[in-house]
């Protein structure tokens, strides 16, 4: 999102683009070895109770449609390639959110023979949401913080 001062309309376009990105984050959810606790909380976040469609968040099935990759759990050796492939299939600009202690540090799975490590060792992560598992409110807060950071760019 570079702004070239030579083109005044460029600033307007960039503002419009950023506005659209902030207001329509479509998400895809990938579990690379979590105990499922975090995934259940993510699903709870998507229920009508929290209704995150009001922020424009939509869960997409295809990585081609998604802007935000929501990762849970540590990365196991087996899931590493799938995680990378999912990430590479997403069109630019894309963001990664790591949900849960395991995604941030490996958590209780740290040092296991089949675990590569935390998400950060495989993908560039934009936002971390701690908790084991984090509450839906915490996940929403994390996504909002991510959007705030996009706004600043």
């Amino acid at each position, binding site marked *: 999102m570079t702004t070239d001062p030579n083109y005044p309309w460029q600033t307007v376009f960039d503002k419009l*683009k950023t506005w659209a990105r902030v207001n329509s984050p479509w998400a895809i959810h990938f579990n690379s070895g979590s105990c499922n606790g975090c995934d259940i909380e993510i699903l709870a976040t998507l229920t009508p109770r929290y*209704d995150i*469609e*009001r922020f424009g968040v939509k869960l997409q099935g295809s990585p081609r449609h998604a*802007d935000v990759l929501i990762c849970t759990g540590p990365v196991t050796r087996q899931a590493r390639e799938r995680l990378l492939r999912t990430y590479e299939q997403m*069109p630019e600009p894309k963001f990664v959110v790591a949900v849960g202690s395991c995604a941030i540090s490996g958590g209780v799975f740290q040092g296991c023979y089949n675990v590569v490590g935390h998400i950060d060792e495989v993908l560039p992560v934009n936002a971390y949401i701690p908790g084991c598992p984090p509450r839906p409110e915490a996940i929403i807060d994390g996504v909002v913080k991510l959007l705030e950071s996009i706004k600043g760019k």
Partner: protein
Amino acid sequence: MTFTDFSPLLTILFFPGGLFLMGVGLLYEWLDHKLVARLQNRIGPRWFQPFADVVKLLAKEEIVPAIVNPYLFVGLPLVGLAGALTAALYVPLMGLPPAFNFPGDLIVTLYLLSLLTLSLGLAGWNTSSRFSLIGATRALTQLFAYEAPFLLALLGPALVARSWQVSEIVSRNAGQWLIVTQPIGFVVALIGLMGKLELPPFDAPEAETEIVAGALTEYSGRGLALFHLGKAVELVVGLTLVAALYLGGIGNPLEFALKTLGLLIIMAGFQSVLTRLRIDQTVGLWWRYGALLVLLQWVIWIVWKGLSL
């Protein structure tokens, strides 16, 4: 007709052809989502949500998969959107007379509206991912299922008016609520429209729980945005067509808004109370009940006409 003399280019680019129609389409899409959300006891999206979605998609990278035919991949969304936009020129949008008309334009309008589904099917076939292939097969199967009953249902009013021209049908049937005399046709037309737009319960072609996103699985960025816009435009054009033919014509913008919104509320109701039909159930519904009931109504109408002469 007056503003076509003014400038055809303006008609096609801004009003009622291009930008304006897309704007209204996205607004209607928001209304649809909002109504469904309210019926599910949610708050629902903000009014600019579809606009933000489309702008964001347009600003995103477009990935062209390695094995596709790139010309088809890039061209098909354009064809679909162009078909939907062209169809809008023949319907009385906003209560204004159609921008263009000629005898038989009802049929042309209906075929232009099918162009979107056709290019969707071709796009799914072209990307040759297994999900999009299944989605494309389902989209085309569904096209064959609802197209004939939908056509028959919209020809009911044409029979009454003895004309195949949208503007003439509307002016001859003005003030005559055909929904009263041809209720079956109305229901089939409205449900056919839902099938055309792949709204629940007819969303098997894009069933996200089974086949990711159907035919559009491999589309990202621009292509996805254009298909999205095409759907939105088709929603408005379809609603206008059904309202104009069955709800006593459209005289002014207020009437347009009220009648199409009424239809939209009914559709939102259907969407939130019904669950997705399997593709064979969809086909069965249309051919076993839809088509036969409309034909029955035709027979009744023709016999009644013959007796009253």
